């Protein structure tokens, strides 16, 4: 025989359940019924009920009290009431829950069971006796202290969890179930957005040197945006060390396999192009209104400047790479190391479309 399990109704709204002023012998029982907090309710069969049974008159009075509960799930509760009046004793019943705030355990019995055991094992070990007018009544879990600290703690955790759920929808790739990784994701996304603002504010100017210097120091392996140099002569801001290293790395990779070299570059947000094309681009962008048109590259894949990405894919003679579609044209004549190194210097970042 199962002990009754009384589940407190949960309502996401903060509706208060007004209890009448009459007192009852078993306040705990009522407190559980009328609790309106969206907390996981307690069901614990193993705990002995504080009282062995309800008296009949108590039940009736309780029934009347119960009638006044506003619950989310009205229909089932009404069914409950019917069974109450029918049986006359206090059956085990469970009040199905409305929208849960979190983990709700639903054990239990339907309202048709009428077991005379007065399971006020509704009361689980550790309920807090509070006067019926208290608003946020909570049923403590088994084995947990019932001091208000832990209750407040749990309330707080609930709140945080629900906010994290809201955040999860905002952040792309928010399908992580782990809280820690989700938080990391959120933090990275905020950083990414701030970086995007920064890059976009740079792009409106044409401050090529400043842009490149700021971005090269921001870290190379991350796919940061690097900008096309207007005229190719403003590499003063670049930290030459990182570029030299990149060059060597690319050259090494190109000896073995072109594809891996491309992938390496792609990871850095760079692409390889013949010098003629690079100079063509730089002269073209010199004349435009915005002499500097970087395509912001970011981990998650920011929006692209369409004109730029269009230009870099056009080459037919040599290998170029578009980040978005990963085209790899056949390397007919072979790009020599010398030219490739220069191309890396003038790398244009192409963001994913």
């Amino acid at each position, binding site marked *: 025989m199962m002990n009754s399990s009384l589940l407190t109704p949960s309502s996401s709204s903060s509706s208060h359940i007004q209890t009448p002023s009459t007192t009852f012998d078993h306040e705990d029982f009522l407190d559980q019924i009328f609790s309106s907090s969206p907390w996981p309710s307690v069901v614990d069969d193993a705990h002995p009920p504080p009282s062995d049974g309800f008296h009949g008159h108590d039940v009736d009075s309780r029934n009347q009290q119960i009638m006044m509960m506003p619950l989310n799930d009205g229909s089932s509760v009404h069914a409950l009431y019917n069974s109450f009046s029918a049986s006359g004793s206090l059956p085990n019943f469970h009040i199905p829950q409305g929208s849960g705030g979190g983990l709700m355990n639903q054990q239990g019995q339907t309202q048709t069971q009428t077991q005379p055991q007065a399971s006020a094992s509704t009361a689980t070990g550790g309920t807090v006796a509070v006067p019926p007018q208290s608003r946020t009544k909570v049923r403590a879990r088994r084995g947990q202290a019932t001091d208000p600290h832990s209750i407040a703690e749990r309330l707080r955790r609930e709140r945080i969890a629900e*906010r994290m759920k809201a955040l999860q929808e905002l952040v792309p790739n928010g399908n992580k179930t782990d809280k820690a990784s989700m938080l990391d994701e959120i933090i990275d996304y905020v950083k990414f957005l701030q970086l995007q603002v920064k890059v976009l504010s*740079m792009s409106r100017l044409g401050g090529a040197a400043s842009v490149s210097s700021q971005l090269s120091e921001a870290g190379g392996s991350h796919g940061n945006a690097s900008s096309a140099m207007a005229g190719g002569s403003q590499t003063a801001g670049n930290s030459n060390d990182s570029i030299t290293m990149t060059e060597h790395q690319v050259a090494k990779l190109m000896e073995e396999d072109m594809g891996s070299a491309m992938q390496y570059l792609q990871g850095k947000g760079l692409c390889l192009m013949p010098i003629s094309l690079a100079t063509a681009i730089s002269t073209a962008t010199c004349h435009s209104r915005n002499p500097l048109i970087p395509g912001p590259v970011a981990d998650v894949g920011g929006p692209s400047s369409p004109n730029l990405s269009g230009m870099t894919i056009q080459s037919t003679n040599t290998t170029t790479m578009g980040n978005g579609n990963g085209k790899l044209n056949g390397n007919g004549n072979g790009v020599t190391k010398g030219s490739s190194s220069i191309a890396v210097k003038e790398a244009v970042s192409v963001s994913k479309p």
Partner: protein
Amino acid sequence: MASADKLINTDVPEKDVFALHFLRSLSNLRTQNPLNSPDKSIDRVRKIKKAAYVSMARAAGGNSRLWSRALLRRAAKDDNKSVRFSRRKRKVTWKISSKRRRSNQRAPVVEEAAERLRNLVPGGGGMETSKLMEETAHYIKCLSMQVKVMQCLVDGLSQK
């Protein structure tokens, strides 16, 4: 856009509001430095970035969010301007001080992430974790809106 969360309102105005504020700030910048490019381009970048953030904060509803207020206050402090804010209830700070004693009970995982978030989100220093996450949600929405606006501008202006 409708917020999915009924308890917390993280609605954000439409893109046009952001665009309007941003363009206005940009035109203000232009009138300040009429055509003679100021000394360093870095300064221009910074000014534009600051204008972007400030316009975003204004578009998102000036005082109604903690982060926007903190942002505006920070920006005004840099300019040595005085900021006028309507006085709001300062419950937030009290909350932190009273609960800090028991901070070891909080989930340490969440708390260290919250610490990092606090450094990122403006005005995050005085907030409790739950409030912080609410602010973060709104901040993320506004940031993405601002990014969209700026991107549209760049795309629109960069075509020959």
